[in-house]
């Protein structure tokens, strides 16, 4: 059996000015509800509607990312899901990692990887070129030929 002795951090509560825990808690619930819609909408459009899973190729994705509706959709999905996941991961770290230094290191790693992914993801969504120069016309969206 595992044994757990004294709490890792002794009671020494000092009140700080800003308290984000309540907002974090609310965020998880609110984003959760929105993400249900975003994720299932995403899955339905990609995997079920039209020709289903067979339709997915570069052209399909490129087509979606020229439509402002899907740009907003995917941006929301990216930000809400990543922050939701990272915040969840943060609580897991808090629950399971007891050494303050390791905890701080993991929090840092988590925050920085989340930031990097958000930036990269956002860049992809907004700087995506659906018709790269010199690409095989077979692979890109049909509207590229009209450009």
């Amino acid at each position, binding site marked *: *059996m595992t*044994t*757990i*002795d*004294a*709490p*890792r*951090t*002794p*009671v*020494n*509560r000092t*009140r*700080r000015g800003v*308290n984000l*825990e*309540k907002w*974090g*808690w*609310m965020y998880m619930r609110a984003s959760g509800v929105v993400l249900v819609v975003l994720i299932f909408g995403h899955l339905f459009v990609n995997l079920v509607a039209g020709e289903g899973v067979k339709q997915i190729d570069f052209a399909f994705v490129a087509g979606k990312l020229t439509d402002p509706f899907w740009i907003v959709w995917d941006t929301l999905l990216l930000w809400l899901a990543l922050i939701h996941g990272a915040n969840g991961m943060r*609580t897991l770290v*808090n*629950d*399971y*990692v*007891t050494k303050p230094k390791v905890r701080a290191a993991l929090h840092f790693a988590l925050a920085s990887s989340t930031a990097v992914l958000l930036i990269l993801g956002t860049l992809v969504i907004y700087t995506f070129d659906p018709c790269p120069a010199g690409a095989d016309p077979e692979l890109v969206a049909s509207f590229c030929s009209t450009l």
Partner: protein
Amino acid sequence: MATTAPEAPAQEVGAVQAFTVTLIVRRFDPEKDAEPYWQDFDVEMYSTDRVLDALHKIKWDQDGTLAFRRSCAHGICGSDAMRINGRNRLACKTLIKDLDITKPIYVEAIKGLPLEKDLIVDMEPFFESYRQVQPFLIASSKPEKERLQTIEQRARFDDTTKCILCAACTSSCPVFWTDGQYFGPAAIVNAHRFIFDSRDEAAQVRLDILNDKEGVWRCRTTFNCSEACPRGIEVTKAIAEVKQAILRGRP
């Protein structure tokens, strides 16, 4: 007519057969041991005996050095919360017949509080959290007679008045295990008892105290506390009600 004490009705109500039960107790004496260790004891028990009876048999017949707390022996004083087969229970409310006696019974101190000796932990951090939620009626009026309260208002917080401060809930909480700064279920239950008392005027103060990094938001709703409570208090529900009250900004 000198009277004789009634013999144990155990003989009519349950099975009479005595049998040998193995208890494996996690021992630790800081004066002697560097690390806690597990020790086996065989005791003769009846099925209607309690785990506390088994511990007494060990202490009184086999090893007087075994240390544990106990007082009322019927689940009202909250002294003997301990981890029995991995679950937090009161030793005096856990009957041998309700455990699987084909296997040894593991008994150890509750977790998350500093281990003092054998089954005894330091309760001070637990009571410190309790004291911090201002667990007392705060009301400015000083009436001539009793303050009035309807039956419904009284029922609103009935469940959380049952708390005996045994720490079974708090020491079953995985958040508390790793973060001793978390107020813990028991403190929140005792705050709940006053937040929802119609006579109290300081709900806002307690809601503010619990709207903290180490307050109710740390609760992960694992329901360990509700399961551990020997008084049957719906602890997780009480915590959720406090969360809702904070969001609402009033009880």
